């Protein structure tokens, strides 16, 4: 056990979203509880430079620790990590984060695909991804990687999304395991603790 009482996450929930996703997250966040084995990594598209407001905004809605993922930091259970603006966030096999300032992917940095794809290759016991509202194609390839690696694919029901494009694109490519409305997401996430 590390000094701060946290241990490496065994299970990971990846959340990806773009336009219209923040509202959904703010809605379910107050109701979720993370056990010591589960970590959440959020990759949300936003403008460069406004990263800390997002962490603050989320912190305000939950008792679970929320922080920006830092390079070489271990992926600990019980924590919600947020990808920093204007860097790609990669999950290493040894369950640490690394950052990458390479070309945008799907016009995005951070790219949901990149985080999902690298996390898919890391040795989590249980890997789940949740793709939310968005006007971008990012996420589809990532979801596919998660499925290939034996993970679970949950997606916001496009009919409830402010922008249906992103979830719909992913659904067209990969059959989802769970189609969720925003009001059902907290129960779904809490169930990942067991």
């Amino acid at each position: 056990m590390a000094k701060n009482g946290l241990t490496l996450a065994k299970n990971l929930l990846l959340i990806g979203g773009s336009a219209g996703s923040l509202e959904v997250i703010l809605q379910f966040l107050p109701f979720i509880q993370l056990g010591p084995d589960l970590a959440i990594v959020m990759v949300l598209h936003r403008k460069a430079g406004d990263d800390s407001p997002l962490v603050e905004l989320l912190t305000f809605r939950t008792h679970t620790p929320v922080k920006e993922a830092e390079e070489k930091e271990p992926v600990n259970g019980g924590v919600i990590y947020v990808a920093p603006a204007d860097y790609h966030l990669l999950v290493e096999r040894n369950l640490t984060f690394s950052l990458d300032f390479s070309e945008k992917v799907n016009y995005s940095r951070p790219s949901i695909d990149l985080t999902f794809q690298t996390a898919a290759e890391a040795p989590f016991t249980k890997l789940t991804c949740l793709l939310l509202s968005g006007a971008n194609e990012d996420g589809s390839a990532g979801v596919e990687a998660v499925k290939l690696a034996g993970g679970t694919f949950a997606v916001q029901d496009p009919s409830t999304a402010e922008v249906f494009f992103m979830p719909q694109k992913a659904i067209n490519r990969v059959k989802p395991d769970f189609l969720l409305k925003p009001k059902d997401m907290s129960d779904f996430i809490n169930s990942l603790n067991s």
Partner: protein
Amino acid sequence: MDISAIHDEDVEILLNDVFELYGYDFTEYSKASIKRRINRLFTLDKFPSFAELRYKVINDPNYLKRFIEEITVNVTEMFRDPSFYRVLREEVLPALGTYPFIRIWHAGCSTGEEVYSMAILLKEANLYHKSLLYATDINPSVVEKARNGIFPMGMMKQYSENYIASGGKKDFSSYYSANYDLAKFDESLKQKMIFATHNLVSDSSFNEFQLIICRNVLIYFDRNLQTTVFDLFNESLENLGFLALGSKESIRFSPIAKNFKQIQREKIWRKTV
């Protein structure tokens, strides 16, 4: 589960080949990024199998150039993080101005956008005439581009906004001449620039500097390699010199941290012993 075309074991084999045959050591780079770059190269150059990629790397020394170019990430911008440049202007340059000569090292300068940004700051602070800017990178082809100082015209609008946000007062377009879709930066900005290839992993210190700028390079290195490179920087920095890193990098985890004091909330530290 390893779902990539080029697996972890392949990456390891290839990096060992490159090290043993050519002396470039990428074995202590962060794994996920380098694996992605190798997979990208594999796809770009349409290799039918890992064995063929390996064969090419081993038997065609000319291909090594391409390998280095594609494995390294060379994305960069002018006046990226304007608040960083503002602190350079307001805190660092006034301190450097008290020296008779100012030696600055841009380590991992990529195509040079940062170096030209720095040159503009020095001009505006009236310090350029007594400065020398050493700009180095592992990748020879970006060093060549940096030497040319020609950047895409399409970026100028954003660079100009960054420049103004960093405290720039001039008309940014006065620093370059536009030629179709290219912006050629003023020759006078280049006078005090020295370009060279330098590998932070294997090459040693080559001078003493008052300011070392190494941004978004260390994120690609393991903690161990970061520590080695911090030692190199410490060795190459005069007492009271400054070390500037990328906005997500820190000396916090390195043994040299105790000799440095952070400037405001920027990723700039001053050497105190």
